[in-house]
């Protein structure tokens, strides 16, 4: 079938502002949107620029706005978006070129919440730290995150408030806060209790809708809020 891709193009070396460009390519209904983009790049216009790697939704490179909603181009099939689509870069961060955005701030937010196991006790020699299946289950959902930024850039607070840590960083914090082996809960909760932390979330749910890994993002944020509230009351 013929597919029309209307892509927001911006080349800082040539363009003073972004503009749409439309391409028509041949694709199967079961092809990924990424396949269609590749088809454009490889047969029509080699200058089209986007990030991609794994092509099956596990590396988090190719989150973009497809028909007005964030998705991974490699996880969305043509048949699910139809034969005409508008493709734009994620919102809220500076565009470097075409669909590539500057993620520096995103990674800074991630690092801010100390995304690593904090446990100062000597690890047991010759065996693992024990953890029950129930304890493991509590944070299973948030271990799935691939840091694609679909959530953070779908959140209206991100678009206007550049201090907001954003849902992805909270998801990363959640994964450790509820890990029974971790001892850094207080530190992380402190960081998220800040003006740019969890309280800035207004339960908009765009993040949850956008997450390609089906992580219940808002739920994770709400759990963190409650833990903080109950700890302080």
């Amino acid at each position: 079938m013929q597919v029309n891709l209307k892509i927001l193009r911006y080349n800082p070396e040539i363009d003073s502002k972004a503009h749409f460009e439309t391409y028509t390519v041949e694709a199967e209904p079961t092809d990924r949107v990424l396949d269609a983009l590749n088809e454009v790049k490889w047969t029509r216009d080699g200058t089209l620029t986007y990030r991609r790697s794994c092509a099956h939704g596990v590396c988090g490179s190719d989150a973009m706005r497809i028909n007005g909603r964030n998705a991974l181009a490699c996880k969305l099939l043509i048949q699910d978006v139809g034969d005409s689509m508008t493709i734009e870069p994620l919102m809220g961060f500076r565009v470097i070129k075409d669909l590539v955005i500057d993620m520096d701030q995103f990674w800074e937010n991630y690092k801010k919440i100390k995304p690593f196991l904090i446990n100062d006790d000597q690890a047991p020699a010759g065996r693992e730290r024990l953890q029950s299946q129930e304890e493991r289950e509590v944070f299973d959902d948030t271990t799935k995150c691939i840091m694609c930024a679909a959530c953070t850039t779908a959140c209206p607070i991100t678009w206007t408030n550049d201090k907001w840590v954003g849902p992805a960083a909270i998801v990363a914090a959640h994964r450790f806060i509820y890990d029974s082996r971790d001892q850094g809960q207080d530190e992380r909760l402190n960081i998220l209790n800040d003006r740019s932390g969890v309280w800035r979330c207004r339960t908009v749910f765009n993040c949850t809708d956008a997450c390609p890994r089906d992580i219940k993002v808002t739920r994770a944020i709400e759990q963190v809020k409650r833990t903080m509230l109950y700890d302080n009351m």
Partner: protein
Amino acid sequence: MLSRGGGRARPARGGGFELYSWYFFRISGLVLIFMAIFHVVVMHVVNTVDEIDFAFVADRWNSPFWRVYDMLLLFFAMLHGVNGARVSIDDYVHRAGWRIVAYSALWLITVLFLVIGAMAIVTFDPNAFDTVTAGS
């Protein structure tokens, strides 16, 4: 990009203020759902604006119950609403200069309106005016 991880995070600012602000939204919201809606229903539905005049208010404020009620409503609604406006400013106003302007204006308005609102409720004395006739 050159990136290096892990520097110590900036310490939490403002203590638990954001937490209490958030919590206050919920508590005051629950209070308001009764008070504000009851207020609106009484003033604008059961009675319509056609029936409301000086005499109506004077009669109502003859009862201390309504004065206390209106005072509480004033404070809850103002603080709840202003808190919301504060959050919105945080989201939309970025330039340091404009931020100061917006916050200053907000706090000024808050104090001013709480004062004049409270003054109206507390100091109002219908007998000060000779046209008094109670009842509707």
